[in-house]
């Protein structure tokens, strides 16, 4: 055990840091893009406050198209786009763009369904009090949906961690890459087992944390 830690400790720690970096950075960008998209879906859908079939159909279709492409293919498919945005297609920097492209529409969808659960009545009550739509979105819809939003984001984070495993193909490293490169390609299964156990623990912690926060925010 001590030998194993001596030999692989550093590599695993480095992989863990890379995975965390990739996940957190792309999560932040995905929320930044996904939340407004989700809100746009809510507002422009039929009978929404800004009912607009054209905008809704465009956004809705775009999200479906991107979500249809498996991440591993998306990664290569959008290489030119990645280069244009990030200036490189390799390393952690190079993988953030495809991760965000994959994750933002997913988050938009999750937040859309979370926000759809908020009753129309409460929105109407706030309209009847002369409150503006932007304030209603933030202080009523997002507030009331916050518990479901956290649960949705938890799902998204876990999905992201899975996708970072494919980041190895563009040299971004991370835990998944470690397990693949050493555990599979170089026949060292104990590295793979160690990584798997670490991933299981991480996912467990994130899910419990998400559930806990969601429960706390629900307050009823």
């Amino acid at each position: 055990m001590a030998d194993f830690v001596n030999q692989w400790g550093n590599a695993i720690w480095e992989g863990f840091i890379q995975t965390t970096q990739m996940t957190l950075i792309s999560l932040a960008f995905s929320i930044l893009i996904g939340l407004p998209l989700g809100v746009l879906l809510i507002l422009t859908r039929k009978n929404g406050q800004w009912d607009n079939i054209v905008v809704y159909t465009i956004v809705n279709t775009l999200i479906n198209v991107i979500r249809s492409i498996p991440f591993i293919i998306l990664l290569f498919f959008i290489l030119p786009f990645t280069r244009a945005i990030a200036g490189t297609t390799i390393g952690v920097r190079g993988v953030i763009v495809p991760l965000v492209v994959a994750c933002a529409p997913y988050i938009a969808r999750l937040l859309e369904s979370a926000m759809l659960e908020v009753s129309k009545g409460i929105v109407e009550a706030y309209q009847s009090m002369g409150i503006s739509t932007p304030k209603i979105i933030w202080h009523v819809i997002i507030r009331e949906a916050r518990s479901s939003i956290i649960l949705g984001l938890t799902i998204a984070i876990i999905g992201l961690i899975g996708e970072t495993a494919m980041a190895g193909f563009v040299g971004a490293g991370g835990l998944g890459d470690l397990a693949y490169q050493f555990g599979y390609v170089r026949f060292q299964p104990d590295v793979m087992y160690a990584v798997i156990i670490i991933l299981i623990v991480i996912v467990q912690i994130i899910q419990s944390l998400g559930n806990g926060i969601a429960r706390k925010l629900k307050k009823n």
Partner: protein
Amino acid sequence: MIKLQHVSKTFRVGKNKIEALKDVSLEVNKGEIFGVIGFSGAGKSTLIRCINLLERPTSGQVFVEDQDVLKLSKKGLQQLRRKIGMIFQGYNLLETANVYDNVATPLKLEGVPKDEIKARTEKYLEIVGLTDRKNAFPSQLSGGQKQRVAIARALAHEPEVLLSDEATSALDPNTTDAILELLLKVNKELGITVFLITHELNVIQRICDRVAVMENGQVVEQGSVVEVFTQPKEAMTKQFISNESKFLIPERLKHELLESGKLVKLTFLGESSKDPVLATLAKQFDVLPSIIAGGIDQLKDQSVGNLLVHIKGDRTKVETAIQFLHDQDILVEEVQS
């Protein structure tokens, strides 16, 4: 206060057009409680939502305090809506906020100064009697308590009008009574004009000054509650009222009674109910009146007595007796076979 003129609203559902409101005109005076009654689907909900433009009328005009609501800018409409409180059948409270915040949050979003928010929230929670529950969440409250929070929330804007969209329809009879009492208090003590819609006659009876009866998107009858109650003209109105105070007598009995005399339905209002009319009939006109059925309806500030009376005796004497009744400030309706 509120004036609706020739308001119509048509919804499009696919290729079908649904006329929810057809040329509705009515006027609500300052300080009164005005009720609209009708079965579900009559268009009441659309009507009340046309006042604060949660629903935009297809045609017609809406005035609130002489402001043409349909001509207001977005900002103007928001300003106006703050003067019009609204409560709903479903309460529509924030589930994630406690009672205090449910009342305070809208004020915060409107930019009311901090200490005023506190003062108003506490004042109106006191008025609705929920001061001791201010830290509770809606899921911990009963339906009646939730509606009180909603009322406090509406009042905290210090509105001039309160719109009530079936506010008591989901409540049991006792709670309904308590909420109606509260609405009366709001109207009397705070001077807030109340416009309510309901399908419950009891609500109209208990607290309304005037009433409009709706059917198929039209107002078929309107007037003071006493008037509409005692002299309903339209079939729809009669149908509503008949559930309460019309006496249903078995056909056979009715037939027998009509053979031996006349049947009259007498409606007594206020003062007229105190004179001993039936005794007078017997004494002066030499006929034999007997009471078949009777009851009293309590309206907001007046009670209405109803009697079904059989008058037996010589034909012409019975006729004069009935004529006498007509002259007595009593509403007389002869029951035909």
